[in-house]
Structures are given as structure tokens and as C-alpha cells.
């Protein structure tokens, strides 16, 4: 199992899509980018819905090259879309059985339905389901087809907050337990930060950066992939324990952060993913005095990205993590910030990566 090899071009927008990627055969890889970046077209090519004329290889199987094309039904690639795409002429049980019968795993149907909380819905028609219910049926149906690769295209973006919160843990469990490589397309920093082991940053049909999620989100070259999303960085921390006055401490590779106590309280040492928005990070050239912020980390400037005439993103290494700070150009010049400068990062707000 050597993962997924993609090397192709597709017509798309003004400049087309051009990818040359090798993705791992395990874990959840996010394709992160604004709408129109070409994310969905890449998934369609992998599923076999579009011919690229290029190269698509999965493990030691060639799905597409110049001469050969494996049709979609022989690839065993599972798909979950923004719309659930359930079959309207079948009830929930019928939808699940459609997949299970073709994968010769009908006996798995009831246990899978139970695992996804679908047992009370089995005789319902898709038209009568809520968005969250329909998406759970779609996910269960896809898994019953026993895919070898799971493609998810903005599966949460049409759902309300409560349904999203119910589906996220299911996707996390799949990522951690199912030994099923997942490609997850999203424009949401929150989803990518919470779910993705690795991330491919895509903008205008080109890969801007790829690698471990925290590194990619901190990479200045990935900036165009944020689109309308407010940029931020991902910090992987561990729960250290409670602090007095309703606070708690999270440990970073070199240092720690103080947050309001978390509910429910994580286990000691539990890994947590945090998102720090670029607007919530300030920079001081000397250790600040008399400041209300709880978290001030010694930092070093790794890079500067010009955004427009007025603003600059400053990429920082702080406490063994990477941070992004959005500053005015005037502040950058006043502080005399350049690559390698030492400074102090004031973190005004930290959020657990939820959505």
C-alpha cells in the first residue's frame, strides 16, 4: 500500500487544474482551498467520473494512464458529497442494502445501521430525513460498499451546527479506526484543523503547499488557499491539567498556554488541536508589562507575507509551534520585524478546533 499517485491536468476555470501529488495510503488528507480552486474536480477524477488523460494510481493498481481507464464501479472508491445523494425511490434500508448487496456484505447492514444510529430510520424515505440524518445514511451506505478509499466533498457544509457536531466524531473515528485512507475536501479551516492528518493547500488549480496540517497552515505559500476564510494556525497541544480560578493549562512542545477550563475535562496528556486566528495574535518587540492577555510566548519571525497595501501576515515560531499574526504594514515597520527577529507573541484568543 503506497498510497495515491496523481499526475494530471483538467480543464477548469482560466488556468486549468494541474496536480502532481503522492498522497499517503492512511489517515485523513484534507484538500483545502477556496471555492473554485478545483478541489471537487480532483475528487471526480479520482472516482473515475472524468477522464484526465494523465496518471492515477492507487497502491499497485493503475486506474488511469494514457492507455488504460478503470471505470468507476471497479475502483471501489466511496464518495460522500455535500448533498447526501440518497436514492429517492428506496427507503433507508433499501439505500443501505443497495451498497451492501453489491459488496456481498448484507450481514453487516444492521450492525452498521446501529453504529450510525440509523435503526429507527430504516423504513423512512430519504425525503423525510433531516440533513444530518441523510448525511449519516450516506456515510453508512458508502462504508457498506467496502471502499478502499473514501472521498468526502464538503460533507458538513450544508448542515446546521448541531448536525455537524454529531457527524464530526463519526468521521474522526473512521480516520482513527477504519484503516481507510480518506481524502477530505473543505474550505473550512476549522474542519481541516480538527480532522486532517495531512493537508494539501490548493488555489486556482495549483498545489500551493502540502504536508502535515500544522506546517501547511503555517506555510506562507498556502496563504491563497484560505480564500475568504480568516487565516489562522493549527497548534497541537496536550492537556496538562486544571489551574486555579476556572482555568486550565495546555502544554506545547516548548512552553504552555492558559485557557478557560474545558468541558468536559480532557484526560491528562490528551492531544488537543487548537486554532489561533491571525487577528488574535499581536506582536511586541519587548516583553509586555501590564497587559490583560494571559498568553505571551517568546517567538521568532520565520517569514512575512504581503497581503495588500496595508496588511502583512507574520509567520512565527513560538513555543515549538507555528503561529500566524496579521499586522498592519506600519506596525511591522515600527517594530522593525524581519526574518529572524526575536519578539513576543501575545495570543488573545485560542479555540479548540471544532468547526
Amino acid at each position: 500500500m503506497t498510497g495515491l499517485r496523481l499526475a494530471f491536468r483538467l480543464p477548469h476555470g482560466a488556468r486549468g487544474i494541474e496536480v502532481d501529488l503522492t498522497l499517503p495510503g492512511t489517515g485523513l488528507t484534507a484538500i483545502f482551498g477556496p471555492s473554485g480552486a478545483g478541489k471537487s474536480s480532483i475528487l471526480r477524477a479520482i472516482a473515475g467520473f472524468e477522464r484526465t488523460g494523465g496518471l492515477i494510481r492507487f497502491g499497485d493498481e493503475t486506474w488511469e494512464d494514457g492507455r488504460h481507464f478503470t471505470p468507476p464501479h471497479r475502483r471501489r472508491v466511496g464518495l460522500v458529497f455535500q448533498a447526501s445523494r440518497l436514492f429517492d425511490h428506496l427507503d433507508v434500508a433499501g439505500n443501505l442494502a443497495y451498497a451492501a448487496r453489491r459488496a456481498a456484505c448484507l450481514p453487516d447492514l444492521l450492525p452498521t445501521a446501529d453504529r450510525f444510529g440509523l435503526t429507527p430510520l430504516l423504513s423512512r424515505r430519504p425525503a423525510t430525513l433531516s440533513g444530518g440524518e441523510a448525511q449519516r445514511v450516506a456515510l453508512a451506505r458508502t462504508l457498506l460498499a467496502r471502499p478502499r478509499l473514501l472521498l468526502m466533498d464538503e460533507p458538513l457544509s450544508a448542515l446546521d451546527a448541531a448536525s455537524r457536531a454529531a457527524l464530526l466524531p463519526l468521521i474522526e473515528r473512521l480516520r482513527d479506526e477504519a484503516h481507510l485512507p480518506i481524502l477530505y475536501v473543505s474550505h473550512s479551516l476549522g474542519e481541516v484543523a480538527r480532522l486532517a492528518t495531512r493537508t494539501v493547500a490548493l488555489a486556482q488549480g495549483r498545489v500551493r503547499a502540502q504536508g502535515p496540517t500544522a506546517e501547511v497552515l503555517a506555510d506562507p505559500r498556502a496563504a491563497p488557499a484560505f480564500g475568504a476564510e480568516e487565516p489562522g494556525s493549527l497548534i497541537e497541544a496536550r492537556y496538562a491539567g486544571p489551574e486555579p480560578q476556572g482555568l486550565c493549562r495546555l502544554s506545547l512542545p516548548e512552553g504552555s498556554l492558559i485557557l478557560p477550563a474545558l468541558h468536559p475535562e480532557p484526560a491528562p496528556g490528551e492531544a488537543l488541536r487548537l486554532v489561533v486566528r491571525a487577528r488574535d495574535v499581536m506582536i511586541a518587540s519587548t516583553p509586555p508589562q501590564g497587559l490583560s492577555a494571559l498568553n505571551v510566548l517568546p517567538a521568532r519571525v520565520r517569514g512575512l507575507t504581503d497581503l495588500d497595501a496595508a496588511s502583512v501576515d507574520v509567520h512565527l515560531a513560538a513555543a515549538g509551534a507555528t503561529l500566524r499574526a496579521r499586522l498592519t504594514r506600519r506596525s511591522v515597520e515600527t517594530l522593525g520585524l524581519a526574518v529572524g527577529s526575536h519578539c513576543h507573541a501575545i495570543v488573545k484568543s485560542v479555540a479548540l478546533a471544532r468547526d
Partner: protein
Amino acid sequence: MTALPDLAPLWLTLRLAALVTALLLLLGTPLAWWLARSRARLVPLIEALTALPLVLPPTVLGFYLLLAFNPQAPLGAAWASLTGQTLTFSFAGLVIASLLYSLPFTVQPLQAAFSALGPGPLETAASLGARPLDAFLTVALPLSLRGYLTAAVLTFAHTLGEFGVVLMVGGNIPGETRLISIAIYEQVERADYRAAHVLSALLVALSFAVLLALYAVNRHTGRKA
């Protein structure tokens, strides 16, 4: 009280309409599917050919069919050598003529239904491991049932009422090619208005019942969806 007029033309017409409807649904499906989904440059050409019977005067279609059915013409000769019978003035000839005449009434509703389906359901079926024919039979077909119902009813009703084509290629042979519309025409020519009234009223009632059933069912399934 005199007896009812001879009802044989009615039964013959119903037999023809049922047979033509069944055959057209079978043959029209792959054609409509191809027209709905192919990106080939040939599509507009075939679409125009398929729609031709809608605009041609039936006598024109009948005239060309009469020429083609002639035992000296390739089609007529092939049929004669296969079956020992001629296509002109025969029930088989009527079936072939009606297939062409009613083709657009089958293909157009089916094509519209297949287009409305979009690529989503079939892609989903394929990703769940369904081969193309499997996906068509288990997903596209049940989701296009309304299109099939419309196509069947329109084809049936249109075949019931055909006159010009039938007159050109079928003539008026009792039990073989004497359809209801021909019988009515002949009764009127003989000034037998009573018989013409009976058959005409039957045809009106039958056509109305078929269309009423179609619209009622369509409305019902429309509400359910």
C-alpha cells in the same frame, strides 16, 4: 333496435397500439438514453430525425413507407424473403409504420426524464459498485417511471388515432389493416352516421380515459415526491 356495428376495427386498433407501445418503450429506451447522455456531435442530427414524424404530414411518411415496403424495394424484398409475405397492406406493415410514426412520442418524454435525472444518481450507483446496466435498471429506470408513464400513454393514444399513414400503407382489409379511424372514414363515406357515431364516441371515451388516468397518476406521484 339494430345490432351494434362491427367492433373488430376497435380490437385491431387496441392490439396495434399495445404492441407498438411495448416495442417502442423497448427500442426507444436506448435511443433516448443515448440522446440524453451522449456528447457526440451526431446528437442534434438524430434528434431532428427522431422528431421528423411530428411535423411531416402523415401522408408523406406513408408515401415513403409505401415505397420502402414494396416487394421490389430492399426492405420489402428482405421481409418477403424472410416471411413469405408482403409488408404493404399487412398488419406487420402497420406495426413498422406506427413505430416510426409514434417514435417521437416515446423518445421525447424518455429523453426529458433521463436528462432531468442528471449524472448524480448514476455516479453514486457506480461508486457503490453497480455496473452500468445494473445502475440503469435499479436506479435510472425507477427514478424515470413518470417519464415512462407519459411515454406509454402518449404513444398508445397517438397510435390509436393514426389515419394518414395507415391509409397509405395499410389500406382497408378487415381483420388485417382495417383500424378504427379507417372504419369511421368508410362509414361516413357510406353515410352510415349511426355506426360512425358509435365508433367515434368509443374512440373519444377511450382516449379521454387514457389521458385522464395519466394526469391523475402524474398528479398523485407528483405530490408524493
